[in-house]
């Protein structure tokens, strides 16, 4: 596959990984699974923040990782929204976004930052510091910053976990808008299947570092024999106990 993400990661330890993912441009993949399934590790491996023992990562035809290549994070064109957002607290929202525009002429950065803030519905708040923003607003600044580098792939670590329902709805809408506006492969981590159903074209169900099954979220959920369905039912019965 020339365009999109082609990933294969394999190692027995220290974090076991046995994952195979193919994701075309314009599609969104949800990595779903229980805690410790290796979801965040996979995102970090794509970004170059974690080096697996073996495997390959190819994005839009460019090899980022294989037996002889391991591009540094600086040279992988990723947009990464961290679970803790990772905003630079000493810089304003606009300043945070401009930090990801090193390859853009300085004269264009301020205007582009304003455009991105508007895209994530934070127009006019560019002068605020992260501490002056709510959690949901901080997350959207992080999303705008992730987009500022014109990434080849967008990675979001648990974007829906720490936000309340209205913010969650708004975030789903923003992700839908990004999907419409930018032909990107998007990968997000979630422990909630409902988020995958709402925002993902594909779902990869992981356990202990292994991808057990993948496919359209609704298809996997509607089949009672899938491991995802069994895990969901197990969770539901555990919650009702």
């Amino acid at each position, binding site marked *: 596959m020339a365009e999109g993400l082609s990933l294969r990661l394999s190692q027995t330890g220290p974090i076991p990984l046995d994952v195979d993912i193919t994701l075309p441009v314009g599609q969104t993949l949800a990595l779903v699974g229980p805690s410790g399934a290796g979801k965040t590790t996979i995102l970090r491996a794509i970004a170059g923040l974690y080096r697996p023992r073996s495997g390959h990562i190819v994005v839009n035809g460019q090899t980022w990782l294989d037996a002889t290549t391991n591009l540094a994070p*600086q040279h992988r064109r990723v947009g*990464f929204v*961290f679970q803790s957002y*990772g905003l*630079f*607290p*000493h810089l304003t929202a606009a300043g945070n976004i401009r930090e990801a525009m090193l390859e853009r002429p300085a004269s264009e950065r301020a205007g582009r930052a304003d455009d991105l803030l508007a895209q994530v519905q934070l127009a006019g708040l560019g002068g605020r510091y992260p501490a002056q923003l709510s959690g949901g607003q901080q997350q959207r600044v992080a999303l705008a910053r992730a987009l500022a580098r014109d990434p080849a792939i967008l990675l979001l670590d648990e974007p829906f976990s720490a936000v309340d329902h209205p913010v969650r709805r708004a975030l789903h809408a923003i992700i839908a808008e990004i999907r419409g506006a930018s032909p990107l492969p998007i990968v997000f981590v979630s422990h909630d299947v409902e988020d995958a159903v709402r925002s993902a074209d594909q779902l990869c169900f992981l356990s202990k570092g292994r991808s057990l099954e993948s496919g359209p979220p609704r298809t996997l959920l509607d089949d009672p024999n899938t491991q995802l369905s069994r895990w969901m039912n197990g969770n539901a019965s555990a919650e009702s106990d």
Partner: protein
Amino acid sequence: MDWQALRLSLLLAVLTTIILVPVAVLAGRWLSGARFRGRALVEAAIVLPLLLPPTVIGFYLLVAMGPGSPIGRIATIFFGDTLVFSFKGILIASILVNIPFAVQPAQRAFDGIGKDLRDAAATCGHSVWRTFWRIELPLAWPGIVTGAVFTFAHTLGEFGVVLMVGGSIPGETRTIALSIYDRVQAFDNASAGRMAGLLMAISLAAVAIGFFLAGRRNARG
């Protein structure tokens, strides 16, 4: 009032701070990120000047910089004299004694920067050096300022090491702390009191200004 001693103390404190702070920033950053065998020993060595009596540190420095030592011989080639009983000697001693005051706050400040911020900078395309200049240094600034202020104030008040290494030569090694001691020995309490009060006021002002600057950065961050 021994103005000459006050000028010498201020010069010693300023030079010690200017020389030590960049070293402390680099050492603090390195110690914050480095994982290596013997790290505990390095950190213990940095703290050691806080724990040892000034006379012990002063004795070792006196021996290390004396005319019979390799350092003393090299200093004689370059400066025409050994380093003991000279301003250069007490400057070196002051820098060594103040290492924990400068390095520890800087290291703690770098320790406080979350890994996510460094990772975020990398995914923004920042090189290690750009991350250091644009992200880590501004965030560690309050700790660095605190270390600089402690170094300055502690140098102003340093007594034992300066006396051991430099003696008390007027205009060369007699700092205001030594001058106060001399005045007390001469039963000139009025003069000693004036100098002690001035030294305390300068130290208090330096620390207050430092805390104000560090606090302003913290409030914004």
